[in-house]
């Protein structure tokens, strides 16, 4: 059986309910947020450990806040991990499933490793980021390595049949990982330090209006953050170039707009961080730095997606080949829910944002209160509409 025929035999015969480009866009968007959260989590945890063991009073004092940031970031990573997991399975089902089945034990192990790492983080690290912090960080790195290996295995369908067989018998233990690209893995992990740097700048910026915070500590956090962001990005740029030149030359990445734009933006970010680093008060630039980091991450995620297309295109696999069975109803349900849900989540975040910026208790003004009431109304209205639809369809399809 040729690789092409194998892929055709594996592909789900039911088609997709909407245009593949839309799933792809959502996948790239949510993956960018996923990897930013992953980076922040790992970066913050590493700095927290550094502070606890080797830092001066300044770093020791920040260790707790950094560990807390890590916990929230891991939640974000999980939240924004399931979305690309979903969209990946819509568009790349043969690749993702084959890769999973070939390493079944690792796939389940991934869940165990992340659960252990996260559990330790909550139950111990949040109190004192000592040895438990180190264990947790190591486990997160293992989890990332498994994710990376699964992604790398996807891209080599020509090797799957060899991996699935051992001495003429089917290999069914799933105990092996078959692919690992250190430079690619590094490319997704090194930005951890940059993300933590930007977080420190944001921290300084966010608490600057609070009278009860030590101004010198905030100023130092901003400077340290800007410096970390710059140096980590410099390392990242170097590693990125190295990774690009090791890619198969037939991909002609220097001609591909996705790679060129991402690379230019990456160097732009480096220059921008250089400027911020030289400033008197880097904290003021924190929101801009965060936005720039997000844009560059998005570009990186887009070129990662392009790269996947190039690898899989070798076997004639294209997005356009998916058969579309338009399902307008469920598509509309999602997009309507998305708009409404984001507005509700935004209210919650706005409350948290404002409440954290003042000491003591914060009471929302009339506009915020109205928005809060509307949020409850939105959820109730959503339920009413869906239940009504459900009752209607139940009667239509199944009678009384």
């Amino acid at each position, binding site marked *: 059986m040729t690789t092409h025929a194998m892929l055709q*035999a*594996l592909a*789900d015969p*039911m*088609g*997709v*309910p*909407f245009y593949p480009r839309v799933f792809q866009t*959502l996948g790239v968007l949510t993956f960018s947020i996923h990897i930013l959260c992953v980076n922040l989590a790992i970066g913050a945890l590493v700095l927290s450990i550094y502070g606890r063991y080797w830092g001066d009073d300044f770093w020791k004092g920040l260790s707790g806040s950094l560990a807390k940031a890590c916990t929230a970031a891991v*939640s974000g990573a*999980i*939240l924004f*991990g399931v979305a690309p997991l*979903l969209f990946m*399975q*819509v568009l790349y*089902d043969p690749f993702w*499933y*084959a890769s*999973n*089945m070939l390493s*079944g034990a690792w796939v*389940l192990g*991934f*869940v165990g490793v*992340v*659960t252990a790492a*996260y559990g330790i983080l*909550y139950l111990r690290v949040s109190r004192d980021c000592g040895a438990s912090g180190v264990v947790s960080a190591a486990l997160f790195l293992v989890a990332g390595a498994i994710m990376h290996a699964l992604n790398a295995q996807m891209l080599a369908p020509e090797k799957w049949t060899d991996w*699935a067989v051992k001495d*003429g*018998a*089917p290999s*069914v*233990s*799933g105990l092996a990982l078959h692919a690992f690209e250190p430079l690619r893995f590094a490319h997704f992990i090194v930005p951890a330090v940059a993300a933590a740097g930007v977080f420190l700048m944001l921290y300084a910026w966010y608490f600057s209006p609070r009278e009860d915070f030590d101004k010198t500590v905030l100023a130092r956090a901003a400077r340290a953050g800007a410096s970390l962001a710059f140096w980590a990005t410099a390392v990242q740029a170097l590693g990125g170039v190295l990774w690009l030149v090791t890619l198969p030359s037939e991909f002609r990445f220097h001609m591909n707009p996705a790679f060129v734009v991402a690379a230019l933006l990456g160097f732009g970010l480096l220059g921008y961080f250089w400027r911020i680093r030289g400033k008197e008060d880097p904290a003021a630039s924190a929101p801009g730095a965060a936005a720039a980091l997000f844009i560059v991450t998005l570009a990186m995620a887009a070129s990662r997606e392009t790269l996947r297309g190039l690898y899989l295109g070798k076997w004639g696999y294209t997005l356009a080949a998916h058969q579309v069975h338009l399902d307008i*109803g*469920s598509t509309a*349900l*999602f997009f309507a*829910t*998305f708009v409404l849900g*984001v507005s*509700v*989540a935004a209210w*919650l975040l706005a*409350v*948290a944002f404002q409440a954290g910026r003042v000491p003591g208790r*914060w*009471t*929302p003004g009339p506009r915020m209160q109205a928005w*809060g009431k509307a949020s*409850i109304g939105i*959820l109730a209205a959503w*339920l009413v509409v869906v239940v009504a*639809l*459900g009752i209607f*369809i139940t009667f239509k*399809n*199944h009678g009384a």
Partner: protein
Amino acid sequence: MYPVWEVPGLTAGLVLGLIAAFHMLPSHLSVGAMWLNVYLESRAERENRPELLDFVRKYSRLLLIFSYVFGSLSGVGIWFAATLAAPRAISGLIHNYVWGWATEWVFFIVEVVGIFVYVYSFDKVDRKTHIRIGWIFALGSWTTMVVIVGILTFMLTPGLWPQTGGFFDGFFNRTYWPQLFLRTGSMLVIAAAYATVIAARVYDAKVRSTVARAASVFGLGGLALGAACFFWYRASLPAHAVEIVEMLVKPGLRQGMIGSTVLLALYFGWLIVKPASARFWPALASILVLFAGIWSFERSRELIRKPWVIPNYMYSNQIIGADLPAKGVRSEIPAINERGILKTAPFVPKNLREVNDENRLQAGRMVALLECAACHSLQQGGVRSLARIAREKELDADMMEGLLYSLDQMPYMPPFAGTDPERRALAEFVAALSKGELR
């Protein structure tokens, strides 16, 4: 057909079952707990009893850690385990219900942001705003249930979907409503049982009593709703499923469901009468009883889907067994019968593609891995071990071969698919396995 991943003795399906049953606790706690919280927090505000907030605070920390650390990850665990148990089935579900899951995910965002903000803003915003955050969380998380139940029930009763292929035609099917309210009942029970654990750890005796009684009322109400909907659910099951219940659901599972319901009713009833007697160990025991009940229910629910993983479309061994004109899909059985399963499945070692005298047992094992291992262990023991079944029924290769001609005469098994030599090889493999001639 994807490469096979075998969990010796257990089957990947049982691993999935274990994770899924565990997931019931944190996920239903997450959906149910906030209703009790907003009730008590509002009461604290109305009756000016700030000491009640002590409980609310402790309880929401449990919610954050248990539901959002272990709950969200066991949810991810179900997904991965389901992938490993039957990748083609999860693929089939996703290619139909991707927007359903995506919609649930939006509410998952609201939940995660909601619980973080709720816990961390406890003393940072005024009470009224805080209660409002609680309401958003409570509504948002019940909504995730409204969505996921549609996909869960689809896997048993796909409604008009096999004819139309339409999302909502499969979603709002005949077991949707009973199961939605059955789960709503269980969410209240789970939330109540956990609340009594936390209540037992509150020092203030008056607070303990107030909370234990309120929680028990929730719990008893949930049990009543759940029990009523259970009968509604049973009545709405298709005839095939009822037949399987009679054949496969062992007395132990039935007793598990009935027994845990009765015990929990007694427990909550007792606490309503004597709320001050809430103690930690009985409360913890109530959760174990609850788990036994959930395990029995979920196992039974899993059994009655056999032999399908997606009804009237895909068998548990991931062979597409029926046409689906609405999506232009045809049954794979005729093609497999003609060409052979070993030639059709992509990941069969080259030397096993054709059955011959040298490779007969190995080829038989490959067929068993592809067609039987989803439900039967291929070890000497374990879940429905083929070796043990053949020993107990004293099946030799000839009898086994005969049985394979009519495997689907039994309502819980798919038909054998493949050529005559493959059938013979499978039969000989099972016979050899049962005699202990193979590992």
